[in-house]
């Protein structure tokens, strides 16, 4: 049944290429390659302040985080299979009329997504590093090994979250037990060896000293996590009719202070009833950030005093901005097309819900600040994280309107996004490094954010709201 897989791959390509052209989609991995290639030339410079091993750690942590962020298939499996692209008839859905099990269709869907992520993100980055190796003095074997271990790092994140999110969708108490067991295992490893447990992360172990045994063990762990997740995946039973009491009217009443109470109430019910408010918070937000915080903490000697806190705050801000995709993923313009609702009204409503969700990153940054004993910098750190998040979402709304999940793969969109976000991150990280209290100046980002949102409304109101 390789045909199903190839049809899904073709379909994914066409969904994106019909949105913004084949060339713009095809150039996406080229840009990632370019970034890695050009970035490789900075390595000799960076090595003067940061040992090579620590650089490797950062890159692996980033790929692990990418895998963690995209791996929540178990959580949203049924939803993405049904409505990811609105009313577009997807192979994943139409294949249900064929003599194929739901699990088999889902397996193909997950593999297709993994392959896409690999070719869009992982391979171009590693390939850029490999091609730059003759010029940067990095041995080719080292560069190839990095490509392999980055792939494994990404897959560990993806399979790990796929497994955990599937357990979550089956039984929440079991998830907590699993997480407890994982934490106990990591703690036990640290206690027994007296070493930092991060150093036992299989891709890092392989990168330090490649052995076939370790490689096979890594592959076996991945296969096990992936296999168990597929077995545990519970396809939505057709014909099930769960009754709900009317929560819309009371919610709307409660949100009467917001600009669009009915839209805010609908978004809230979408997030709550789909299970993604809690699930996404755990798997697409908390878990990746805790992991990156853990990894970054190993580099704290190389940061200026209090630097780690502000790096975590900025990273939290960027990840928190992706919460906009949580609220835009449930519906296309379709359900609103028969109502007197403008695209700009919907953007306002989605951004309002996004703003409410920013309580989560604010609490997270507060927790990090308290746990790291830097309560004195609580307000500047929270201010920096939340300002970055709002600024990044302003750019996202301007560039992608209501379709950030799809349009992010337009190379032009990604390029502009990276430039606009990158410049601001560099400036405000440097400001926070020079004096933690200067991070309060990030409040100024409210001005470009407001302007971007206004531009987003005008821009997307003038575009046909058809399609996605």
């Amino acid at each position, binding site marked *: 049944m390789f045909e199903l897989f190839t049809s899904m791959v073709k379909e994914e390509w066409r969904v994106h290429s019909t949105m913004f052209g084949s060339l713009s989609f095809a150039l996406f991995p080229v840009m990632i390659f370019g970034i890695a290639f050009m970035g490789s030339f900075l390595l000799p410079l960076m090595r003067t302040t940061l040992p090579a091993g620590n650089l490797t750690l950062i890159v692996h942590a980033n790929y692990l985080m990418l895998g963690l962020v995209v791996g929540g298939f178990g959580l949203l499996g049924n*939803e993405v299979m*049904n409505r990811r692209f609105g009313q577009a008839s997807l192979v994943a859905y139409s294949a249900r009329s064929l003599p194929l099990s739901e699990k088999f269709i889902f397996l193909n869907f997950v593999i297709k997504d993994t392959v896409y992520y690999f070719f869009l993100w992982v391979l171009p980055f590693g390939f850029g590093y490999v091609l730059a190796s003759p010029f940067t003095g990095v041995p080719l074997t080292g560069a190839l090994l990095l490509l392999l271990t980055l792939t494994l790092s990404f897959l560990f994140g993806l399979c790990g979250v796929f497994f955990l999110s599937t357990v979550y969708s089956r039984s929440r108490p079991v998830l907590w037990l699993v997480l407890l067991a994982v934490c106990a295992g990591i703690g036990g490893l640290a206690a027994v060896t007296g070493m930092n447990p991060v150093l036992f992360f299989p891709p890092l172990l392989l990168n330090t000293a490649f052995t076939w045994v370790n490689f096979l063990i890594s592959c076996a762990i991945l296969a096990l996590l992936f296999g168990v997740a597929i077995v545990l995946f519970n396809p939505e039973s057709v014909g099930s*009719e769960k009754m709900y009491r*009317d929560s*819309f009217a009371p919610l709307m009443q409660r949100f009467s202070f917001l600009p669009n109470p009915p839209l805010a109430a609908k978004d809230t019910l979408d997030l709550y009833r789909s299970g993604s408010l809690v699930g996404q918070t755990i798997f697409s937000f908390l878990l990746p950030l805790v992991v990156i915080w853990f990894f970054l903490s190993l580099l704290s000697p190389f940061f200026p005093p209090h630097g780690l806190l502000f790096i975590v705050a900025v990273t939290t801000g960027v990840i928190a901005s992706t919460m906009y995709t949580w609220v835009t993923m449930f519906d296309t313009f379709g359900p609103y097309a*028969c109502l*007197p609702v*403008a695209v700009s009204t919907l953007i306002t409503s989605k951004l309002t819900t996004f703003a409410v969700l920013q309580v989560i990153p604010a609490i997270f940054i507060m927790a990090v600040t308290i746990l790291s004993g830097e309560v004195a910098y609580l307000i500047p750190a929270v201010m920096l994280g939340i300002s970055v998040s709002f600024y990044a979402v302003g750019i996202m709304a301007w560039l992608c309107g209501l379709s950030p999940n799809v349009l992010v793969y337009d190379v032009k969109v990604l390029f502009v996004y990276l430039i606009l976000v990158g410049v601001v991150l560099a400036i405000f990280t440097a400001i926070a490094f020079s004096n933690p209290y200067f991070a309060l100046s990030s409040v100024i980002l409210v001005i470009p954010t407001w302007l971007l949102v206004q531009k987003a409304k005008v821009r997307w109101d003038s575009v046909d709201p058809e399609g996605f």
Partner: protein
Amino acid sequence: MPVVLEAKNLTKRYGEVTAVDTVSLAVEKGSLFGLLGPNGSGKTTMIKMLTGQTRPSSGSATVLGLDVVHDPIGVRGQVGIIPEQETPPSFLTAMEYLEFVAAVRKIPGIEKKADWWFNFLDFADKKNVLCKDLSRGTRQKLMFTQAFIHEPALALIDEPLINFDPIMQDVVKDYLEGYVKKGRTIFISTHILEVAEEICSGFAILHKGKLLHTGPVAELIVRGEHLPSFFLSLVRKDRHV
């Protein structure tokens, strides 16, 4: 009778493809007007343009006196629309969806009105079920309800009977005929010609985006012709051309 819907040289192009090609037509108040055509003839695109869901490439249209290009939200506020594919939001119940529609359209007393519709279309037992779990027929009932719950002066319906069982088709046909008798207007698109002949007072035939004919159904009856045979002969002739 005053004209409530008027299209002048309405055209929609998608790249090289012309979905609707310089179509002009007018619909009078109090009529039940049928836009007929084979699959892919441009009926849905036409309805989307007339309801401000998509912008025409050229030409103009007014609905209830409002320009569909300059005031699409105003148009959608005045009319009732049932789109081609039923798309109530997944995670609202049927009742909550109607409350949502009422809040957006600012319709008072929604509970009473919703209950009347739940009973009329026989789906009261589904009012607390999530929209994603409803059958296609029940979703169509819900979409039908949202289009008429504010009693619009004009309703535009894409394939009104497509997901209904024969009993419900009868109920809906009666409702539509009664609705226009109250002086309101209905614009339907369909390729079920027998239904169009039975309930429509005026009609237009689209083929490959072009308007082949528009006029009253009574005109055909006077000539002793039937709508299905008239439609087939016109479309077949156009195919050969």
